[in-house]
């Protein structure tokens, strides 16, 4: 089947759905790939690079004839009109807020797979473009803040005076929040993070940030992997915390989003007013109304000297990286959809992941999908318990010593003197062996075994003392014993020598 990649039609969009390295991988699944000319130019993937990996550069009209169309942004109404029978589109679609497009697509046996409807289960992580874009956005949010912030992030002590490190508050420790924490700490800032889900504390701390909590016991985890809406008391406590922090920190980055709902208002006007002039707020929820009361979509608002950044195109501001991640997500989806690797698409509605992201199948709307429970949250809770099994401790008991003493006494009481002599030698030898063997390095245990093997053939001495017998049966048996023991002596020592010769520094 043929895959077509369209140049993104949205203004200011610099990303491309498929990069040349993903083309290589997708071709292995058996597909032919056509790309609209200069589709990747803004993210530094040029036509020649695509041609080198075997994709064809085709005019737009030809792309629209492909069986599968790959895009990033949801298709515009113009684009939907150009679609014809049996085509499949894979792109972001926002089916919940985009019902008119959804209606338009319910025609001509179209299939629409929505990238933002990939269920948040661990198996689907590699296909989750929302996560990979959130990762880019989180990191870029810090860079945008650094760009507009008039100071260093890291502290220094210079001849001209001391430079205090920037203090950053990150609200929401999801994918974007964690990515922002990582970037901010590596720039040297003091980072604090807040999240309603207590189980992310460990992850936040592992990235070098401080985890803030309110003094109220309420768990914000939910079964779908997102945070849930909290109680009123909790929100009140939370807002008090934010207000207190606002007067202290230089930068606030908010990432709080609850799917399908308007973003919660976490930073109010009076919080902005207590911030120091020159402070920055980056609002990653501005697409859904913003976490900050004053935020405006795709704009920078200045209030009391505080800049509030509401960009919604952060992933597109790192176009090469975002395209690379997005096209890897696409590859993993196509890999799932092409179980036979023969270049033919199989939309298996019994598969939870594929079912979840398919919003139109054969021209009829299949959104919303039946709810599936996500294991992510309970699993994480389970992780924290982590029972550590200790190796069974061998209790040292006095019984063996008592038994040994008793049996020694018995032997001494009944055995004749000649036996006791040998017995003394035997017991002492066992102890010498015990002391010597514990010193043997474990890497030489195999040579140890082969050499002890040769050594135990000392039994040949016994057979040699029997060789001078006149009894024929005895002579034959002793001869065999000498013969096989010699095999052992020569073989054992020679193979040990061979092995030891191999050990080189």
């Amino acid at each position, binding site marked *: 089947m043929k895959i077509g990649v369209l140049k993104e039609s949205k203004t200011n969009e610099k990303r491309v759905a498929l990069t040349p390295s993903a083309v290589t991988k997708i071709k292995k699944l058996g597909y032919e790939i056509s790309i609209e000319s200069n589709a990747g130019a803004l993210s530094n993937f040029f036509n020649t690079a695509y041609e080198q990996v075997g994709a064809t550069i085709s005019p737009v009209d030809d792309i629209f004839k492909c069986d599968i169309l790959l895009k990033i942004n949801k298709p515009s109404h113009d684009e939907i009109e150009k679609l014809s029978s049996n085509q499949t589109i894979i792109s972001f679609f926002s089916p919940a807020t985009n019902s008119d497009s959804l209606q338009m697509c319910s025609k001509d046996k179209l299939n629409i797979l929505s990238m933002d409807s990939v269920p948040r289960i661990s198996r689907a992580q590699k296909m989750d473009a929302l996560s990979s874009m959130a990762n880019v956005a989180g990191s870029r949010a810090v860079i945008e803040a650094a760009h507009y912030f008039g100071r260093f992030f890291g502290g220094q002590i210079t001849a001209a005076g001391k430079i205090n490190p920037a203090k950053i508050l990150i609200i929401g420790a999801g994918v974007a929040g964690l990515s922002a924490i990582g970037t901010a700490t590596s720039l040297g800032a003091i980072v604090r993070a807040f999240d309603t889900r207590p189980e992310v504390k460990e992850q936040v701390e592992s990235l070098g940030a401080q985890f803030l909590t309110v003094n109220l016991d309420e768990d914000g985890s939910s079964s779908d992997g997102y945070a849930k809406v909290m109680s009123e008391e909790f929100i009140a406590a939370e807002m008090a915390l934010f207000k207190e922090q606002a007067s202290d920190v230089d930068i606030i980055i908010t990432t709080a989003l609850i799917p399908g709902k308007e973003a919660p208002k976490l930073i109010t006007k009076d919080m902005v007013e207590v911030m120091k002039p020159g402070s920055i707020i980056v609002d990653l929820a501005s697409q859904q109304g913003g976490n900050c009361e004053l935020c405006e979509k795709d704009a920078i608002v200045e209030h009391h000297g505080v800049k509030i950044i509401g960009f919604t195109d952060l992933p597109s501001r790192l176009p090469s990286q975002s395209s690379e991640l997005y096209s890897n997500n696409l590859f993993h989806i196509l890999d799932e959809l092409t179980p036979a690797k023969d270049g033919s698409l199989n939309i298996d509605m019994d598969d939870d992941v594929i079912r979840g992201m398919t919003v139109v199948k054969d021209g009829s709307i299949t959104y919303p999908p039946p709810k599936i429970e996500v294991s992510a949250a309970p699993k994480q809770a389970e992780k924290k318990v982590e029972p550590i099994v200790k190796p069974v401790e061998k209790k040292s008991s006095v019984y063996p010593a008592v038994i040994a003493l008793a049996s020694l006494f018995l032997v001494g009481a009944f055995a004749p003197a000649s036996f006791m002599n040998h017995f003394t030698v035997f017991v002492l*030898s066992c102890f010498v062996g015990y002391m010597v063997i514990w010193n043997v390095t474990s890497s030489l245990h195999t040579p140890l075994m082969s050499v002890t093997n040769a050594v135990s053939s000392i039994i040949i001495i016994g057979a040699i003392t029997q060789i001078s017998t006149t009894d024929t049966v005895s002579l034959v048996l002793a001869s065999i014993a000498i013969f096989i023991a010699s095999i052992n002596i020569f073989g054992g020592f020679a193979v040990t020598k061979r092995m030891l010769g191999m050990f080189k520094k």
Partner: protein
Amino acid sequence: MNLEILNMEVVRALYIVSAVLFILTLGGLSNQETSRKGNLYGISAMLIAVIATFLGPQVSSNYGLLIILILLGGSIGLVLSKKVQMTEMPELVAILHSLVGMAAVLVGLVNFINPTQDYVGVEKTIHSIEIYIGIFIGMVTFSGSVIAFGKLSGKLSGNPLMLPAKHYLNLIMILAIIYFGHSFVSSSSIENGYLPLAVMLTISFFFGIHLVASIGGADMPVVVSMLNSYSGWAASATGFMLSNDLLIVVGALVGSSGAILSYIMCRAMNRSFISVIAGGFGTESTSVASASTDQGEVQAIDIDEFKNMINTSKKIAIIPGYGMAVAQAQFVVNEIINILKTKDIEVIFVIHPVAGRMPGHMNVLLAEAQIPYDIVYEMEEVNDDFDNIDLSIVIGANDIVNPSALEDPNSPIAGMPVIECWRGTYTVVMKRGMSTGYAGVENPLFFKDNTRMLFGDAKESLSQVLTLNN
């Protein structure tokens, strides 16, 4: 011709020299530098002992036959040692153990039918017991080693033999051996002793077979060391029988060596010696394994990504299992290491005590591939250090890197010390497919977020890495 040049006192003195040299032999193995000298001590000790006996008063005729037999056996031994593959070492050691066992049986029999000394009273009883025990240990060593050889070389199935009521079977055999032991010791003449001895030989022959046959493939390292130990005790018992202190000393050295190795192997699997002998690792655990729930999805990678991970790492730990040796991948690994060295990437090997099929086997296999021993580490030396390791590569290993040993108290391998590679940044597991290891346990490592799976033949995959790196 009579070569009785040395009197018995001189022979004894030489035996002392020999015994001391044997102790030095084992002492020499404490590190790689002195180990070669240690082997030379062993050879000289054996030479001194044999020559002293040869020239001593106990040998008075058949000198020519003796020399021919030694040369004949010796040349077979030399050929064996030249031909053996390093992967086949456990088989070789097993079959050589069987020879020691057989020699002990033969020496015991000759001593019985053709006694050199007359004993009376308690001394006679003790001597009879010595003969009986010596022959018994020798026979069990012999038949057990033959079965171990069959299992290790794949001629016999590696699965444990599960006879009904096998513990009772063992008990009955032991009781029978004790019973016939009593009638053997109390028999008035040599002729009366033949029957109980023959019955005991037969029973102990089957006892040895049953003992080893009922032990599973995963426990083979323990079995090999256990037989090593038996061969020593057999020599020691023969020493008692012949009133020869050299045999007693040397046998005891070997016996305790094998016992310690068995103990180390048991500890490495967190198993008691009794439960190993009782047999059946992997049989009781299958039910647990199948009950494990869906653990999520593994993340597979291809050669290009693997190569990328290698090249962006600063410190790499390679964790080899026996699967690496089966694929003969260690030679390719060595070539890769040499290339990585030129790129300033540090590579170490981490070895689990039961990684091969006998104690220290993996070290020998790596040494054969000329991997320098100073980059080969023991599990305990590295486990606390995985924070500093960017990439762990698991080649052909499974159970020894299974986190459920530490995390899941219900796991059949719970409590077994394992290599904790998941504490490092990334782990790549090279594996043919998703099958379980010897213990039949699911491995949660494969499903961890920082684990990547590279499916396919290890040697082939590594060869591809090599060509990509050049």
